[in-house]
């Protein structure tokens, strides 16, 4: 078991270490200026030095993303159930959701700041929520429609009501799909919460910190904040993957 895990992890780890090493050596040997690309060791030093601020920024951005996930996913699941029961709702929302999935939602950030106030985080929550909403809604609807005809026939033969079918057949069957939607949505929420900060609003998050350090030409610090954003993104991905794994049927993990 351990040997297997090692064999799985070894090639990517080697590739990663090799790349980091090459990066470090290249920066040192070619005397690359820090404003072009700082060495990994320099970035790490900045990361350690400003650890408190980075954590604060990550918590700020992460909180916005989390609220977005909770609101967006809850709304998406409810509306997907509604849409699966009432055909017209599904038909009416299909083009809007399809459009929302190819549209840069973060472009809404500036007008949301105007609508809710530039000193409020609400705009960012909404951006994160809408970005979560789309994959969760689409995946949930897909999952709800996947119930096997033979199972449907069974419920029909037992004169189950529409809600009973939803409660006992469609919802449990759709769960893995909901989880997949949440996994995709979580990663999107973090990125969108982060870049919504580029479009204005209050300071304090990682996105604002990256741009402000870059604007003041403190590039190693900007990279340290980027590293913070990477770690936040990975954290979100791991949580999403864990949710997906928990919800997946046995053996399919």
């Amino acid at each position, binding site marked *: 078991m351990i040997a297997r895990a090692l064999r799985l992890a070894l090639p990517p780890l080697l590739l990663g270490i090799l790349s980091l090493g090459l990066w470090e050596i290249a920066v040192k040997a070619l005397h690359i200026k820090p404003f*072009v690309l700082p060495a990994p060791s320099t970035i790490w030093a900045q990361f350690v030095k400003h650890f408190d601020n980075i954590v604060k920024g990550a918590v700020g951005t992460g909180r916005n993303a989390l609220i977005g996930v909770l609101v967006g996913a809850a709304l998406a699941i409810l509306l997907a159930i509604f849409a699966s029961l009432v055909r017209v709702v599904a038909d*009416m929302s299909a083009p*809007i959701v399809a459009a929302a999935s*190819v549209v840069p939602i973060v*472009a809404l950030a500036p007008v949301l700041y*105007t609508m809710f106030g530039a000193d409020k985080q*609400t705009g960012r929550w909404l951006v994160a929520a809408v970005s979560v909403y789309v994959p969760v809604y689409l995946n949930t609807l897909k999952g709800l429609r996947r119930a096997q005809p033979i199972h449907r026939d069974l419920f029909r033969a037992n004169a189950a009501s529409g809600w009973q079918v939803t409660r006992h057949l469609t919802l449990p069957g759709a769960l893995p799909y909901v989880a997949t939607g949440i996994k995709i949505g979580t990663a999107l929420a973090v990125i969108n919460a982060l870049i919504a900060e580029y479009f204005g609003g209050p300071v304090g998050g990682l996105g604002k910190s990256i741009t402000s350090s870059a604007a003041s030409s403190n590039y190693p610090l900007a990279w340290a904040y980027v590293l913070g*954003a990477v770690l936040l993104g990975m954290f979100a991905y791991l949580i999403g993957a864990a949710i997906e794994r928990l919800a997946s049927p046995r053996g399919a993990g």
Partner: protein
Amino acid sequence: MTRGRRLHPALSGVLGILVLVLLWEGYKLIGPEKGWLVGKTRVLPRASDLAMPHVSTMISRLFEPTVGASTPPLWQTVLKAAIKSLGIAGVGWAVGTIIGLTLAMLMQRFVTARSAILPWVVLSQTVPLIAIAPLVRRWGAQLHLGSLQWHDWMSVSFIASYLAFFPVAIGALRGLASPAAAHTDLMRVYGASNWQVLRSLRFPAAVPYLLPALRLGAASAVIGTVVAEVSIGLRGGIGRMIIEYAQAASADPAKPWAPIGAAVLIGLVAASVVGLLGWCLRDYQRGENNA
């Protein structure tokens, strides 16, 4: 497939948009002028014309001059910016697609490459490269490749391609690996070369997986373009325009909605291009339907 049934989705789509407009105007009618605050959090938006202009105002604003009386109507200015952004996104999408396909082919062919690269491909998307857009621009400024000069729009395309390559790489990998054992056995019996297997079997079989991936990639490229334009500060595109107009919104509240609408349009055009590609490749999306 009767004509009436085909019309149905379009009709319900229009209905859906109508419902959105009604919700917007309805909220304006009954919503509080200053929004609704729970503690310090504003959970309902301000309903004032400044924060939420009428839909009719947004539309009529399109046909008024951009800034002064002598400037072209707003819709022309916005459309020009949209075309520029679409072009940048298109370059990013094409580059990202090529990179994604190459990576997928590499990973499909060599098991070691797959186990070494795949985790990093997945991980790469947790890295918000958009976040380092300002830094990417600095790299570009340092680049001197002979006579080729690095323009800022190339940095934007680069970021767009970084976002676009991921879904293509994952989708193509799944697609290239999708042929059933019977099919690969058959190719082996025919003594087909690796290239022949790729061309006659794996690529055609990958089409149904590739199309959604390409659509996702196109959407990602558009998003990357709009956002990177903002963070790099590239003028002339939609992203920058959204910010500029939003900053002037207190004097002209309907104006920022025009570039936002244009961003929606770019996304839809990008998706339609992929849709068209799918239509051209429709023969490759047939089911096997084994009785």
